């Protein structure tokens, strides 16, 4: 209620404000005016006022009130008189004025009448004029319409000429905008022959223009800005964007292909890559950039927006870049593959680095592209290939070194005959040093791949796999394995095909492998691990395994050496036994020459082996072994061996004795593995030779002098061979067997006197 009231008041207040009334004064007035007793109020009721006064006031007060009121009435009367008096003149003048006005109005009325007639006349005239001007006005409007139409038509008619001119001036954009303006109209009125003609003309011209634009687009020389303009215009000419992309790319392709063709002529790898980077990759980047400018990043407007050009364009661009990059990569890979010379790796690494570095630009331009990763793969492949090449080079080097050693072994022997064995240790050390140097230089070359300033060196491949699988396993370990394996091959091929490998080489290789086992392998692998900080993430060949392999190879080579040397001596002995008629031979006067030869050869082998291998241990023997054992051998034991066999009953004893003897002697393994020392090697060779001697003797039949000759020969061998072997009893035993077997194979076993044998042997 109150709110309502207050609102009313407010509205009221605002009205009051509008009429410039003082609200406060008014309210006071109102409050007063509401009182019927207020004598000045509008609601004053004399009766109420009188009653009130009568009730409330005493007589004195009433008297006072009456006087006061009379006083007030008198003053009011006087005031009124004054006012009337004062305003009288004004009333008079006002009456005059009104009278005058009455007159004036009358005059004005007349004039107004006159004016209205005049106006009617004017209206009439004006209507008349309008009527007469009506036609002309319509004509003018029409004319002005015709004028504009004609202007337009003129534009249309002039359009072909204008377009032609534009064409001439190469103001293509103007032409295109003109044509665009006219195009709709022409299209609309194309049913009229003349317009049709114009339209056709325009079309022809525009085609020509488009042609020219395309030509320009196709031409190589145009700048990127021109091209962009071209494309813009062509797009406005409703040229399909797809086709434009294709054309643009084809155009680019031809240029890029020209670059590639240019590349093919290049010979030097660094120049090749440089040129590839500067020409091909730069062009490619340029193409990508301008293409993106033209098709991908352009602001979309109007109808073009709906066609989703960027999406299509990006797809095309990717395909294009991939295709071009593939061509380029093919070329690069072929070129890298041609890079076979392993001399200077730094060139290749630099080239690869540049190659890799420049491809990063493509990556930046075209984020989703596979090109950089492919490029990295090429680098990785190239690195792998390189490792293979280095391995092959190392292997070649090794084989070449071996060939040199072989020649060195053969040549002096032909020339002087004595120097060959002397140079064995030198050959070994030079061979081993040169191989080690070669490995080091190869490692240094390969190390370039992981240099810090090479961009691809921080790729995961080059940090991990390249070092461990590539360099360590594929290169170093494989090379060591190759050395062992090729050494083993010497053993296999030579065994069957008559020992084409010189024995000295076998010995030398054996020593080389042994050195590898003891120190070189560890050294090389440690070196590799240190240089390449190999982290063994994947399992790698252990040093111990390689050492084992090397030792095995060394053992095999040495065994083979023993076999080959043993065979050479064996053959001499065998021929000497097989070719002789032992039944009808003459009484021995000399040691046969072949025995001297055997001793000579054994001595020279001894010298040869001692150059590379340590002496080794032998069983102790007296200073005069040859003499002392000799007597034992041919005296007591030999007598018991075959002397009793003259009588049939004793035959059993012979065998029995020999069997008893064998029970107590250790079994002799003829072709048994030898130890890495001279004595063991020589023991092996002598064992093989004497065993052959024994087997050959058993296949023959001897006469008395045949037996005696064998006795002499064996004695001679005894005198000289004991010093070479680890256990002289071995020589005794085998020679014993030989003489024993000869006695068994003898038709007339009459042994020679020991003293005579000695004399003959002393004589030599």
């Amino acid at each position, binding site marked *: 209620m109150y709110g309502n009231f207050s609102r009313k008041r407010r509205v009221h207040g605002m009205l009051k404000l509008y009429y410039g009334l003082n609200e406060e004064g008014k309210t006071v007035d109102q409050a007063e005016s509401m009182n019927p007793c207020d004598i000045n109020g509008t609601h004053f009721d004399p009766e109420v006022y009188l009653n009130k006064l009568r009730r409330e006031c005493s007589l004195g007060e009433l008297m006072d009130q009456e006087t006061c009121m009379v006083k007030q009435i008198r003053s009011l009367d006087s005031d009124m008189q004054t006012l009337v008096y004062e305003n009288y003149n004004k009333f008079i003048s006002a009456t005059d004025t009104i009278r005058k006005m009455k007159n004036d109005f009358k005059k004005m009325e007349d004039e107004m009448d006159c004016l209205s007639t005049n106006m009617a006349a004017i209206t009439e005239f004006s209507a008349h004029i309008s009527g007469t001007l009506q036609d002309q006005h319509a004509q003018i409007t029409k004319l002005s319409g015709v004028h504009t139409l004609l202007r337009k038509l003129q534009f249309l008619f002039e359009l072909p000429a204008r377009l032609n001119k534009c064409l001439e001036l190469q103001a293509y954009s103007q032409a295109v905008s003109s044509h665009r303006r006219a195009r709709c109209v022409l299209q609309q009125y194309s049913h009229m022959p003349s317009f049709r003609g114009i339209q056709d003309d325009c079309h022809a011209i525009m085609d020509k223009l488009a042609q020219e634009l395309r030509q320009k687009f196709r031409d190589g020389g145009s700048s990127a800005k021109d091209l962009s303009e071209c494309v813009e215009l062509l797009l406005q000419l409703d040229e399909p964007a797809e086709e434009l992309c294709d054309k643009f790319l084809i155009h680019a392709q031809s240029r890029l292909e020209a670059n590639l063709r240019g590349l093919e002529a290049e010979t030097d790898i660094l120049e090749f890559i440089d040129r590839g980077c500067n020409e091909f990759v730069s062009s490619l980047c340029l193409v990508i950039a301008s293409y993106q400018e033209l098709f991908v990043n352009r602001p979309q407007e109007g109808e073009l927006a709906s066609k989703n050009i960027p999406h299509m364009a990006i797809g095309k661009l990717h395909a294009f870049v991939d295709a071009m990059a593939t061509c380029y990569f093919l070329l690069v890979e072929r070129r890298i593959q041609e890079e076979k010379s392993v001399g200077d790796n730094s060139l290749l690494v630099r080239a690869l680095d540049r190659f890799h570095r420049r491809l990063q630009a493509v990556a930046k331009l075209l984020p989703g592209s596979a090109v950089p990763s492919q490029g990295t793969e090429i680098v990785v492949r190239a690195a792998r290939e390189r490792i293979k090449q280095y391995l092959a080079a190392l292997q070649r080097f090794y084989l070449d070194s071996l060939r040199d050693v072989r020649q060195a072994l053969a040549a002096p022997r032909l020339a002087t005959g004595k120097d060959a064995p002397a140079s064995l240790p030198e050959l070994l050390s030079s061979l081993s040093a040169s191989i080690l140097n070669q490995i080091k230089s190869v490692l240094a070359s390969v190390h370039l791949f992981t240099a810090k300033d090479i961009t691809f060196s921080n790729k995961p491949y080059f940090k991990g796999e390249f070092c461990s699988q590539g360099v360590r396993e594929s290169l170093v370990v494989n090379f060591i394995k190759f050395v062992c394996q090729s050494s083993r091959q010497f053993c296999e091929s030579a*065994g*069957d*095909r*008559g020992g084409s490998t010189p024995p000295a080489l076998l010995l030398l290789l054996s020593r080389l492998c042994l050195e590898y086992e003891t120190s070189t392998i560890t050294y090389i692998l440690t070196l590799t691990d240190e240089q390449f900080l190999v982290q063994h993430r994947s399992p790698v060949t252990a040093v111990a395994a390689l050492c084992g392999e090397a030792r095995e190879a060394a053992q095999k080579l040495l065994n083979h050496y023993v076999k080959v040397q043993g*065979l050479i001596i064996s053959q001499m002995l065998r021929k000497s036994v097989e070719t002789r008629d032992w*039944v*009808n031979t003459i009484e021995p006067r000399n040691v046969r020459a072949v025995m001297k030869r055997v001793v000579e050869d054994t001595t020279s082998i001894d010298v040869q082996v001692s150059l590379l291998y340590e002496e080794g241990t032998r069983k102790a023997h007296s200073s005069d072994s040859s003499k002392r054992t000799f007597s034992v051998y041919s005296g007591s034991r030999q007598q018991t061996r075959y002397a009793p*066999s003259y009588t*049939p009953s004793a*035959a*059993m004893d012979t*065998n029995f004795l*020999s*069997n008893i003897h*064998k*029970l107590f002697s250790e*079994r002799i*393994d*003829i*072709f*048994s593995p030898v130890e890495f020392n001279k004595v063991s090697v020589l023991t092996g060779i002598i064992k093989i030779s004497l*065993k052959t001697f024994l*087997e050959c003797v*058993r296949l023959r*039949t001897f*006469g008395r002098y045949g037996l005696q000759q064998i006795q002499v020969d064996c004695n001679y061998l005894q005198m000289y061979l004991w010093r070479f072997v680890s256990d002289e009893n071995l020589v005794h035993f085998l020679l014993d067997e030989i003489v024993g077997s000869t006695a*068994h*194979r*003898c*038709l007339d076993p009459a042994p020679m006197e020991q003293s005579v044998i000695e004399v003959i042997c002393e004589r030599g």
Partner: protein
Amino acid sequence: MYQLYFVLQARALTSQTAESDAIRFLVGTQSLKFDNQIHIIDFDDENNIISKSVLQHQAGEIWHISASPADKAVLTTCYNKTSESRVVTCGAVWRMPPEWESGSHESPDDPHNSHNPQNLELLCHLDNSSHGNASCVLWEPMGDGKHVISLADNHALLWDLTESSTQATISSSATLEGKGQLKFTAGKWSPHHNCTQLATANDTAIRGWDLRTMSQIYCIENAHGQLVRDLDFNPNKQYYLASCGDDCKVKFWDVRNINEPVKTLEEHSHWVWSVRFNHSHDQLVLTGSSDSRVILSNMVSISSEPFGHLVDDDDLSDGEDNHQDEKTKEPLQDSIISTYEEHEDSVYAVEWSSADPWLFASLSYDGRLVINRVPRALKYHILL
């Protein structure tokens, strides 16, 4: 393992090919001073008793012996005959006297036995002075005992024997020609192709001959690094041939491809003198060597029974007869079954029994004959 000693040295060993019931081996002795003998070794498998009979072979020391596949009593020998300071090797066909079996079946230790042995009956000489020394005589395998081949120096002579084998005539011959003094060292008559093929060894080469035309059909030059000592045909695979030689190797050949051996064994440490396929189970190969060892190998990969039976290792551990270390072996893998080291001297001959395929004999130069069985575990492995 059962051993037997002879007084004399011996190189020649054969099983009695025509005998399929009794386990019987023939050994020819080699002595220049005494009368040579042929020892007939009988092995009683059930009682494990070896018994020996002796026949005199007075013609000379025996280098090679070979039993007729048709007649138990007929055999051939190659022997050295020494006359007037000349040593000539001859070949001859002999018949054992019919009484030997009943008459002299005594224990080998009986001294009486060796004093009064019976003589072999000479049927005919396979001699032809123009063809030189005979190195071995081969019977036609599984034949009727009418054809033999003798290898004499560089000739291979095919002989036809009469019904009673008393007369031999040369029906055809082949001659090895070439530089130097060529000499056949060993030979083997192939049991395949209707017995029309012969393989011979000379020096390092192995040659195949067609007996119908007496012409060479193949030649493996440098089959071994050194001399080839012996040959044997796989009885079940017609193109497979084993050879052994002075390079300590045993090689297996497929004669259709002679460039490479199918397999090479290098287990011996000296010359290998003899190689023999088991007659029934050709994966079992026996070799004897002058390193005094006999090696029994299981060449599963190139045998006619390449798919052995899978047997648990537990079953293989049982080996009553085999006191050697027997390796537990995987099925289908070539392996050495056993190395026999009983011999003290060079082993020049090894031979499978013709009666019992699980039994074999080896002979060393010192006159020791050793009879061994295939380890029982292996036997069951092969059979089951």
